[in-house]
């Protein structure tokens, strides 16, 4: 396989974008065909490049000019995250209608996200990730400028922080390559910088951040694409940090802090979900919930945790496509989507979360307490999901962009694919874990296509879940239909101190500078003085500078 093939997953969508633009300018809208070609082409290229050799392939195209070189590589981590990004994006681009301008921006966004995961260095990842973020914002604002979208500042700040971390590596270690940075260069501050970038890039906060806000938009075309392309990138950085640190974070405390934050993110989403006013609101919290669980397990620093996190992210990717295509009305698709989202046994989500919780208990050092909190969070999710089944549908998005059968198929697939958990783990997640957890932190999750072996137990995914699936099919087929009463339902509980914090926040927002001091910071008042061309100001400035240099 020639190393140039590494470019294929990036170039194919770009070619598609060029074709779409060219035809668009000629007043010919190629619609979904070119989009599908570009996105699925990228997926196919990733599969071909990785599966044909199953080892890292890289391409070095020389320096770019800002300190890092154009080094692209496809390794197990890049492959895994590449699929997590491209597959849901391809599903959405192939089905949902878009204008040629929207399609161009969306497909270029996919190319940028793939570049971010293929980049061999931190700065290039920051550049590509920043591009993906910019294009996502453009996409969202183009679709509906009044609808909620991620704060551009937060996204740009995150990618700037990452680029700073990259240049710190370059200045300190002479390289920012993921596989070349010396272990000693990953100091706690640099780690924190990358972690902050990761959290900001994916909006991993306990409060309601952009991944949940996007689902309240009138249309879910740009929202789905943005979540599909941007959300996994933050996790990608956290996974790569293991590669910098020879398989571990610089301090065990950092694992605990990040894992705890993960639980907080999942719990925050669960609390909002159990109080959702309608089903759309509930579904909006699903991806942040998955993200929280994934963060919790990825941050643990154990092979099983990392594997469980990757499986959670893959499931979240599938559900991103599902939720964006799901119509806002009750019925089987909604029911199955909710079941898949909450991790009904024996689905993929169920298996991944169980593995994740087990990894916390087996991580030692009392991290099992985090697992305990994770389990409690899952229970809130279960209650919230049960409540959501009967909630009003919520604001409906255009029928043209919904595909109930496809959404149902995707949701059902994530449940029925439960028995394949071990196969996913060994073929998809294990190689990625092996890629970043080498050397001193060597270790991997044993098992194969049938079982997932943890430290203390074995999960017989194939042999236990296949009969369970069969039983479920029979039982549900035999079961009578029960009418679900769609009704406004009270929240299971309200967060204690919620009113207090709301009042505090309102007070902070209402805080104003006392009248007599406003003129000091009133730019409109200062502007004429600064821009009025007064000789006194010039002389004063000159005097100040002279004074400064004589100190």
């Amino acid at each position: 396989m020639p190393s140039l093939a590494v470019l294929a997953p990036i170039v194919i969508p770009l070619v598609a974008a060029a074709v779409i633009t060219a035809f668009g300018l000629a007043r010919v809208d190629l619609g979904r065909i070119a989009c599908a070609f570009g996105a699925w082409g990228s997926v196919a290229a990733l599969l071909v490049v990785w599966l044909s050799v199953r080892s890292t392939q890289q391409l070095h195209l020389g320096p770019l000019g800002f300190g890092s070189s154009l080094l692209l590589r496809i390794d197990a981590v890049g492959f895994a995250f590449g699929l997590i990004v491209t597959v849901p994006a391809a599903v959405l681009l192939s089905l949902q209608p878009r204008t040629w301008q929207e399609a161009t921006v969306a497909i270029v966004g996919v190319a940028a996200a793939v570049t971010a995961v293929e980049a061999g260095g931190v700065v290039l990842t920051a550049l590509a990730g920043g591009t993906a973020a910019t294009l996502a914002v453009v996409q969202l604002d183009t679709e509906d400028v009044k609808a909620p979208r991620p704060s551009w500042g937060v996204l740009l700040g995150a990618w700037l922080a990452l680029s700073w971390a990259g240049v710190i590596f370059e200045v300190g270690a002479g390289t920012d390559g993921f596989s070349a940075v010396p272990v000693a260069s990953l100091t706690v501050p640099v780690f924190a910088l990358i972690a902050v970038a990761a959290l900001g890039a994916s909006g991993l906060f306990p409060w309601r951040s952009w991944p949940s806000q996007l689902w309240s938009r009138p249309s879910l075309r740009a929202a789905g694409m943005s979540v599909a392309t941007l959300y996994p990138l933050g996790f990608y950085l956290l996974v790569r940090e293991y590669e910098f640190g020879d398989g571990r974070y610089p301090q065990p405390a950092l694992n605990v802090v990040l894992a705890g934050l993960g639980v907080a993110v999942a719990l925050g989403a669960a609390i909002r979900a159990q109080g959702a006013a309608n089903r759309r609101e509930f579904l909006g919290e699903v991806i942040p919930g998955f993200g929280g669980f994934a963060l919790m397990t990825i941050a643990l620093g154990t092979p099983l945790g990392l594997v469980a996190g990757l499986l959670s992210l893959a499931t979240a990717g599938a559900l991103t496509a599902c939720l964006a295509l799901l119509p806002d009305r009750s019925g089987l698709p909604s029911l199955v989507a909710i079941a898949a989202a909450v991790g009904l046994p024996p689905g993929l989500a169920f298996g991944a979360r169980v593995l994740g919780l087990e990894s916390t208990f087996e991580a030692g050092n009392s991290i099992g307490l985090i697992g305990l909190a994770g389990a409690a969070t899952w229970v809130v999710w279960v209650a919230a999901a049960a409540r959501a089944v009967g909630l009003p549908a919520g604001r409906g998005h255009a029928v043209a962009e919904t595909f109930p059968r496809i959404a149902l198929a995707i949701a059902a697939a994530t449940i029925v694919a439960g028995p394949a958990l071990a196969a996913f783990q060994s073929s998809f997640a294990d190689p990625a874990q092996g890629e970043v957890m080498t050397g001193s932190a060597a270790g991997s999750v044993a098992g194969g296509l049938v079982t997932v072996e943890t430290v203390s137990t074995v999960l017989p995914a194939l042999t236990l879940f296949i009969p369970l699936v069969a039983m479920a099919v029979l039982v549900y087929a035999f079961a009578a239909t029960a009418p679900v009463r769609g009704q406004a339902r009270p929240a299971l509980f309200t967060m204690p101190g919620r009113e207090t914090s709301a009042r505090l926040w309102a007070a902070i927002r209402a805080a104003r500078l006392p009248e007599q001091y406003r003129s000091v910071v009133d730019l409109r008042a200062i502007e004429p003085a600064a821009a009025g061309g007064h000789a006194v100001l010039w002389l004063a400035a000159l005097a100040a500078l002279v004074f400064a240099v004589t100190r």
Partner: protein
Amino acid sequence: MIQILSALGADSLALVVYPGLVSLLVFGGLVEITWGRLAHGWWNLSELPRRRPTPVAATVAICSVLAAVQTAAPYNPVPTEERSVVLAAIALAFTVWAELALTVEHVPEPGILLVVEFCWLLAVLGPAVQPESLRPQVLGNVLVPALLPVKVASGLLYLLCLPALLRVWPLSPPADRRSRQRFDIARALSWFSYCGLFTTLFVPPAPDGWEALLRFFGITFGVAALMVVVGLVMDRRGPALARGLYTRAMPPFALLVLLLVIGTSFIVR
């Protein structure tokens, strides 16, 4: 391949027959009929459900079966190393909320129920924090003096939670207040999983044999009987007692258990 097929057969047997669906129905049916007779005074076959089970009952069945095969029931075809307390706990968590999917009127006091379930999870998973093992029978076998306080406290907490989780408390849902109590198939499917899990986690298992079988089911039936008695007492004393117990008494006790778990995990480490 043969190994896979044999494992598939064994797991299927466990899920469908023992300690799976059939066992659940038999055990749960007996306990539920007893409960119905004692609590509501009915006892004839005509009271048994005639209609096909609802999707709620189907969901409860799937989850209870998954939890049941994780128990340390003697002769359980699922190998001991393939059982996990996390699997059991989470699967059972689904059974409590399934009915909420239909309408809020089928679930009494969802807020209190959620708190009770948190406490129950603490009772189930708390003892696993320090040993760092998730095999149910390993946890049942733990007799290290340093870990016994946590185990005993968790066992008590588990028992405190069960009446609420099995809904034998007097806080009945609004829907049931309108009509006479009927055979609750969802609850019937839950009896064995909850009580069997208690036996598994808090009673040291014995090697497979008739004695072990009698011992396991004896204790499990004992737990079920205790729940029936507690339920009857609560029923007589009225909802106030139950509400007071689950809002004022249990959370502080759960907090104590949590502190014990944290303290033990740090001290023993």
